[in-house]
């Protein structure tokens, strides 16, 4: 049942680093995170790994396993050949802190730019009434465990660091969609989504959806409907005419 595997881990900090090889025992039923913990306990006490629940619920142990963005706790060792070298590297899009741990603060800063839930005035706690069918759409997005694999994968940021300022990424735009579809939310976030969070940078290649460990249909159910809502507002001829008239009168 047990065998010796070859692991290749990225070790280093934001300045420099290199891939380091480890020979390590693997037992039946284990996942990549188990094997890394064994390396940590027996060969490299200071190996930096970020993890919490080890059950795919907290979204902490994101990394790239053989180049694919994955949660290490959900990557089973029996998906590799026994003689296959397993290479684990930190998320490529974010700055490395040490070894496999990256600085993901970008995601929290962008999340803070989305205006919060705003319920109807005068609606008291306890008096909220919503139908299951109406909350379901937003509930899908609230399954998000904030592993940031979608943020890491989206090529609008991954391959274009310069976009980070203007584009908040799929996780954050999905939050906008979630609030927009909340049956009792009263705020219109369409302009913010387009102008400040960069919804237009998304060109719906669905890479985010592919890597989502919660299998949320980020592109189809959140980003595309959000784009449609923005279009409805921005390019509706009557709304457009109205906004031009207002602009003109206010500029006098």
């Amino acid at each position: 049942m047990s065998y010796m595997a070859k692991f290749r881990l990225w070790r280093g900090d934001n300045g420099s680093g290199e891939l380091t090889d480890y020979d390590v025992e693997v037992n039946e039923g284990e996942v990549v995170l188990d094997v890394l913990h064994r390396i940590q306990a027996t060969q490299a006490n200071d190996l930096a790994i970020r993890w919490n629940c080890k059950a795919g619920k907290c979204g902490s142990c994101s990394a790239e396993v053989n180049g694919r963005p994955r949660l290490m706790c959900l990557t089973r060792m029996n998906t590799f050949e026994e003689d296959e070298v397993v290479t684990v590297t930190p998320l490529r899009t974010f700055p490395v802190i040490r070894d496999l741990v990256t600085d993901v603060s970008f995601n929290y800063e962008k999340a803070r730019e989305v205006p919060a839930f705003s319920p109807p005035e005068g609606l008291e706690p306890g008096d909220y009434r919503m139908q299951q069918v109406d909350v379901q759409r937003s509930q899908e997005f609230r399954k998000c465990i904030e592993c940031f694999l979608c943020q890491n994968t989206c090529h609008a940021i991954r391959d274009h660091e310069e976009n980070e300022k203007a584009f908040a990424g799929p996780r954050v735009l999905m939050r906008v969609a979630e609030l927009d579809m909340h049956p009792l939310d009263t705020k219109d976030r369409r302009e913010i989504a387009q102008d400040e969070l960069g919804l237009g940078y998304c060109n719906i290649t669905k890479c985010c959806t592919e890597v989502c460990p919660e299998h949320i249909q980020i592109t189809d159910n959140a980003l595309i409907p959000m784009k449609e809502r923005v279009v409805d507002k921005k390019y509706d001829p009557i709304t457009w005419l109205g906004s031009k008239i207002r602009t003109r009168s206010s500029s006098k």
Partner: protein
Amino acid sequence: MPTPERFSYDVVVIGAGGAGLRAAIAVREAGKSVAVLSKSLFGKAHTVMAEGGIAASMANVNPNDGWKVHFCDTMRGGKFLNHYRMAELHAQEAPQRVWELESWGALFDRTKDGKISQRNFGGHEYPRLAHVGDRTGLEMIRTLQQRVVALQQQDKAEFGDYEARIKVFAECSASDIFMSGDGDSRTVSGVLAYWRPSGQFITFDTSAVVIATGGIGKSFKVTSNSWEYTGDGHALAMLAGGSLVNMEFVQFHPTGMVWPPSVKGILVTESVRGDGGVLTNSEGRRFMFDYIPEVFKDKYATTEEEADRWYTDPDNNKRPPELLPRDEVARAINAEVKAGRGSPHGGVFLDVSKRLPADVIKAKLPSMWHQFKELADVDITLEPMEVGPTCHYVMGGVEVDPDTEAVAGVNGVFCAGEAAGGLHGSNRLGGNSLSDLLVFGKRAGDAAADFVEGRTPGAAPEAEIDAAVERWLAPFDVPAGENPYTIQHDLQQVMNDLVGIIRTESEMEEALRQIDALKERARHIKVEGGREYNPGWHMAIDLQKQLIVSECIARSALTRQESRGGHTRDDFPGMDPEWRKVNLICRLDGDSVKVTRQALPLMHEELASLFDTGELSKYMTREELTALGREVAQA
């Protein structure tokens, strides 16, 4: 030595799970400034793993529910060792706390008339748990996280700075609480912490601290708890002069995964049973019918037919024994496995596949389906799960005032959530932990904000800061020594084998000897590598706290000579009314732990009137019953 980075806040909250965030929100809403220290990233605390729901008697599904019923269920579940006042406040305030979450954006599953849906759970008389599928903890922590952000947005609008009054210090662990002054005026003056990414220390000047650090499960080998659960707050409270109450009560959740070995201990939600799942042994028998204890005889079904009817007609049938409180189910599973009727990997079978259609299972238990598929290659819509007990929760904890959560005898320190003791007595009902976090997190935050009103913020004493920093850095400088991972592993083995689900005197004495030896080894830890994001070093610091708390558990367990709730003695198998009157209190005495006995306050007559004399006499002594004005038949 470089001077640590230094901040000043009205209140410092240690811990960013449900209790910590709810406390921080209360402090900020009272207009005070607050720092939240989180060992992990923001929104990843252990609360995220809670599955089943939040217990609150909103009576959305069964109109007969109300706070009094919830109170009674909580007391019964805890075998009447609960602090009655905490159980009362908890039952009264839980509905408000849940509705508040909804007004902050939480999206719970709904009833047909659009209210928050509520589900059945062990020990709860009526469907009471507000839930979102089986990921309720995620919904709760995300909602609190987003509420913090909403308050930060308000502050940005008012002061131009998101972090003007509430700041989350992510991946920042508290190592020390400082106290200043003498005698009765001795008060909190600061907190020392370290940034996990950089390894640099950071000091907070403050005069109030809320401890909300969760539990202790990482001291046991088989556990549903993450690396964070090292009893930090328990130890910090003791080191500040506080005490722990009833630490012998550790909850072993009956259903953890047992296979594959690497996921042994990971939680399988009680909702599986609440929604119809049944427990069977290797002979295919629903064995829980054989384990209904005397005190619950008239509340549970005695035949499979009646138990099955209950799911659709709960008013006219008794509930299935699979929904007994967790301590009962865990002991039953343990006994079945010991008797040789276990499953292939040393558990029992939990089957929902023959009970519900596949699409219903996937809708009601999505993350369980996902978890078993991804981690064990088991499709729970087609085959049974294998489950067994796992260390899940500590009922004991820091001794607090029930109304303000002020830590007994320590000015300026408050404590809420799993870290605090009292509410759950000897056994916690499922769903009562999330409501605990909200009710007492808010109360602790309110009380801390009151405490600092008109008070000049403390100043952490320089000499003590320097001494602490030097002490924590020492393991880097020794030429050779013990591996922290090995010591933690050994501690987990000791606690699991000798202070586990079934306990005896000789084994616990042996555990205490071994803990002593581990304490000695922990003085000689060698930390490899540098200070940046070094988990080995973090573990070396956490271990000091784990060892103190583990000693408390073992010593209290050795002292209490009866079996009750989450404390089962092979050598004292019965429940003893004399012991019910006793709280066991742990205090630090130099390097070791001293256990003393203290009277458990007796509930007042109005609350006692909710129980009939027959039920009370199962738990209480003749003198107590007389004190409550009950006629007691002559023996």
